[in-house]
């Protein structure tokens, strides 16, 4: 056991070498979702922006464990940081928000959500993202045709997208929503959407009976694409659109498939924006705007050309 104690001390001393406190402003970025690509881009860009401003950044990830994130927020609140950036639904980490605010530390949301305890939140506008793709579909069909929608009601940010798209389609007299499908998640939404789309194609066997597929995010759009390709109905000119611009979606669009458009959130822009907001807040500015929206961009084959 002497060995044990010795090893422990060595281990802790090694770890300690990393953690000297600096005089420069220290900002913690806290998220349970660091494994996700979008979060990674945001965190990397935030670190770059912070370095330019001369801050030190502490990134904390709790590997999808929300309760642990609350605990870590309480821990950092005791340290006297200059600011905390969270990338998680603020209503789920309220005890952590209280701990930070009680300690006088401002908390900023990064693609998080509006909350009274946040100074402000920087995000994309879900309504405008859905509007971008829905109007793309309306334009491509010249305002007439049958559209299949893939939606997901239980998750509010995605539910928003569906509601807007539906409003746009319903506002176009000659467009019919042939079906609005919630894909099964049992084997992933891609597989679920693919199975659902196969059924839709069987129900509408005539060429030209479906003109477009609008998906609230990219996975079901990719599933629908696979179903259409497997059914040999690529030449009917069915227009598919998704949202989020995942790697797979970009590939499908780049190769000129039926998947024609998606929307890319500007994660780098959001990270830069929140860094600027933190800077002005530390500089004494009073921020009253609840959500700062960073525009998202439509991505089509033309945007992906080398």
């Amino acid at each position, binding site marked *: 056991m002497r060995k044990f104690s010795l090893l422990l001390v060595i281990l802790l001393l090694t770890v300690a070498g990393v*953690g000297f406190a600096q005089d420069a402003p220290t900002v913690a970025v806290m998220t349970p979702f660091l494994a996700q690509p979008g979060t990674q881009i945001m965190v990397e860009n935030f670190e770059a922006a912070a370095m330019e401003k001369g801050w030190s950044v502490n990134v904390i990830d709790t590997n999808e464990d929300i309760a642990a994130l609350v605990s870590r927020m309480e821990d950092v609140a005791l340290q006297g940081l200059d600011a905390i950036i969270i990338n998680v639904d603020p209503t789920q980490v309220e005890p952590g928000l209280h701990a930070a605010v009680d300690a006088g530390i401002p908390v900023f949301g990064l693609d998080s959500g509006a909350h009274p305890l946040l100074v402000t939140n920087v995000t994309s506008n879900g309504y405008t993202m859905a509007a971008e793709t829905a109007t793309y579909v309306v334009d491509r069909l010249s305002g007439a045709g049958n559209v299949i929608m893939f939606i997901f009601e239980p998750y509010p940010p995605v539910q928003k997208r569906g509601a807007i798209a539906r409003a746009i389609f319903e506002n176009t007299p000659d467009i019919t929503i042939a079906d609005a499908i919630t894909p099964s998640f049992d084997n992933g939404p891609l597989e679920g959407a693919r199975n659902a789309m196969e059924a839709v194609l069987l129900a509408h066997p005539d060429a030209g009976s479906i003109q477009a597929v609008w998906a609230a995010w990219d996975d079901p759009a990719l599933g629908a694409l696979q179903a259409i390709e497997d059914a040999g109905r690529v030449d009917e000119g069915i227009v598919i659109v998704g949202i989020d611009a995942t790697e797979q979606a970009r590939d499908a669009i780049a190769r000129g498939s039926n998947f024609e458009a998606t929307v890319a959130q500007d994660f780098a822009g959001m990270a830069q924006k929140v860094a600027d907001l933190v800077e002005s807040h530390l500089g004494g500015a009073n921020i009253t705007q609840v959500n700062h929206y960073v525009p998202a961009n439509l991505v089509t084959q033309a945007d992906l050309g080398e």
Partner: protein
Amino acid sequence: MKDRESTGPARAAFSPERFLRRYGTLVGFILIVVFFWTQRPGTFMTIPNWVNITRQMSILGVVAFTMTIVMVTGDFDLSIGAMASLVGIVAGTTFQNDGAVGTAVALSLLAGVAGGLLNGVLVAYIGISAFVATLGTLTVFRGLALYISGGASIYGRVIPAEFSSFGRGAIPLGKIGATDLALPNLTILAILALILVFIILNYTIVGRRLYAIGGNMEAARFGGIRINRLRLLSFVISGLGAAVAGLMLFSRLSTAHPTQGEGLMLQAIAAVFLGMTLSEESQPNVGGTLIGVLILGVLANGLTQMQIDTYIQQISTGAIIILAVTLSSLSGQQRHYGRWLRRLLRRLPREGD
């Protein structure tokens, strides 16, 4: 196992080596605390921070304490994390249907008992190994939670304020210097669970019998101990513990997500293992489990305060668990593993010819 049996005379009453072997993990814990104290003198060794740590560890504590009872009998309950999640969804769904707090709590505890009964019947009466049985029920509970909730979190106004304020509340104890001292409600629940489990394991005949079952199940049966009933009971207690933890989690976060408790299971097992190193015969014991829980909690708290990268935190936590268990078994069993290792190494060069 044979190597551990010594027919030789009893060991001497006291030796420093023996003391360190038995209490090494405790010494390690104290070293960790002292270390963080020196590194973060202003914030670590403060009353608010320790109140903070106890509140953070209270939920893990409750499941780890009740898990200790199952592990005393030599079994595992892998389903506790999924049960804690499911209980959150059960309570949340009750709120969505305008159920009162009392109704939600009662239904949740009922779900915990039912899940424990299911595990216990599968293991004790049908004879499936605890590992397989509770792995199965883990999947069932997780599926149920996802099914009932439709995969979505339950949060917001449906949750009664009195329920969510409990998880954030505390009982004020007065002032120490300039700081208000208050004992969080969650911490109080964990202390109650600790006392209860401690009494069961150490002062009741049920506890003695549970240890006997873990020591030698066949001898326990031949010695007139009703092993099936007691194993069933241990799983029911663990299910109940998971339910209480699930409610605590729900109350603390004011959110019920269908997978939010899953991290608890592995941490609870790790805490019990750490605690076992504090027992002469490597038996699970709730005092040791408490130290195990505190080690995990203090490491997470202290390393965060030192702004250590979270991935490094995970690596060091895992390394410390392995270190503690390995070293206590190395010295505790007359270097049984060391001998085994040497024999293995000796064989290697000969394999070549």
